[in-house]
């Protein structure tokens, strides 16, 4: 199907994009990689009157290491993240998660910022951002502000970004020596959206898990969310198989899950228990790579 007619304008700078957003308001939509927006336009689920292309803005893509964090420009494409040694070394969770996002041709075009702002409940990126405690830098007509991933994802394709704001960069703390990451996902076909996905970031005090435990899940309901009861269960304890099992059950019980034509609620809860368990197993024992590839 073809999209409804629209007008096109390429922004040449961030200021330009913000001015255009201010001018056209809710009639306009930013386009980055377009790998989610264009399908929605072709299905006529989205009908923007103006498309503001941000692909020509220089300086919006790129990966830099700064003060113990990775600063990733919002226009950085998945394939650039995959190819980045800094990303693979400093944020192993992204390395585990990226191969699950669609296929190479999509990853060559799709951007980290686009996925975050689109906030598809079954997408992988919001799940990773919650587990990694990422911070988003937004710019609008009144200046720059920062917002934590925890406060950003509000509902189905709904985020804390204002209509006249643009996501500039994503800041992710670099992995510490005592920190372990895991990811696991179930999808019906390779590259499909997740029916259930889980990401885990654990910091250790010696043999025990510290208070820094972040587990996030996706694919279940209207948005990615933290599994806080499971996190609380793990904090301060040694990660035995029994404890991991218990945490996975707690996550499956606490998260929001719904039924639709893809899966029933009961099936989703069963899936998420398995995904949380596998993500934790990957984090605890990095040699078992259940989360890396299917």
């Amino acid at each position, binding site marked *: 199907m073809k999209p409804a007619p*629209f007008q096109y304008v390429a922004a040449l700078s961030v200021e330009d994009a913000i001015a255009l957003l201010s001018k056209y308001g809710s009639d306009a939509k930013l386009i980055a990689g*377009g790998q989610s927006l*264009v399908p929605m336009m*072709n299905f006529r689920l989205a009908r923007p009157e103006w498309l503001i292309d941000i692909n020509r803005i220089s300086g919006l893509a790129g990966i830099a290491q700064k003060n113990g964090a990775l600063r990733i420009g919002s226009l950085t494409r998945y394939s650039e993240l995959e190819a980045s040694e800094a990303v693979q070394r400093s944020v192993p969770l992204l390395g585990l998660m990226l191969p699950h996002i669609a*296929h*190479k*041709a*999509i990853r060559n*075009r799709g951007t980290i910022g686009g996925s975050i702002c689109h906030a598809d409940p079954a997408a992988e990126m919001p799940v990773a951002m919650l587990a990694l405690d990422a911070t988003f830098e937004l710019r609008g007509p009144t200046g720059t502000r920062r917002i934590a991933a925890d406060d950003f994802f509000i509902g189905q394709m709904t985020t804390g970004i204002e209509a006249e704001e643009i996501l500039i960069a994503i800041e992710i703390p670099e992995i510490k020596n005592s920190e372990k990451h895991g990811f696991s996902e179930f999808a019906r076909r390779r590259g499909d959206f997740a029916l259930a996905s889980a990401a885990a970031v654990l910091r250790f005090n010696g043999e025990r898990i510290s208070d820094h435990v972040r587990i996030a899940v996706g694919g279940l309901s209207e948005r990615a969310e933290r599994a806080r009861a499971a996190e609380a269960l793990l904090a301060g304890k040694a990660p035995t198989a029994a404890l991991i099992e218990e945490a996975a059950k707690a996550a499956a019980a606490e998260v929001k899950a719904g039924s639709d034509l893809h899966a029933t609620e009961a099936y989703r809860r069963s899936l998420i228990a398995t995904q949380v368990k596998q993500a934790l197993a990957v984090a605890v024992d990095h040699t078992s790579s259940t989360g890396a590839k299917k």
Partner: protein
Amino acid sequence: MSELKQHDVSLTVNGKAETISVAPRASLADALRDTLGLTGTHIGCEHGVCGACTVLLDGKPVRSCLLFAVQAEGAVITTIEGIGDAQSPHPLQRAFNECHGLHCGFCTPGMIVTLSAFLKEHPQPTSDDVREAISGNLCMCTGYQNIVRSALRAAELIEGAKS
């Protein structure tokens, strides 16, 4: 809505400089087929799932149904016509012929464009590597066996041509 504006877009397609006039909503796939007459690029699902419309954008495979032609200003595009032709086929085209990888032929241009970039990065792939590489290209004839065989054969042909 006010009157829709046509846009002039200058791009390089299969090594040739082109300037086309397109409506904003025209996909690159439509522009290649309808404006430039390059009908080797096939349009299947128009939402990025089937891979039939895959072209190389600055050397990398992308879905031409998910890119508006107006966004391709200054881009270097390679379509299946630029990969090789009947007179001088690409090793992949020879291999698809030899190993019966075509079937109905609808998915073939996307398969070959995708694999052309993949084999550059992975000159000696395993069968599993090939399956992963074409996981985003759907064949409705369910003919993946011969497609995988064709890709592995092409890798041999490319390797053989080097020595």
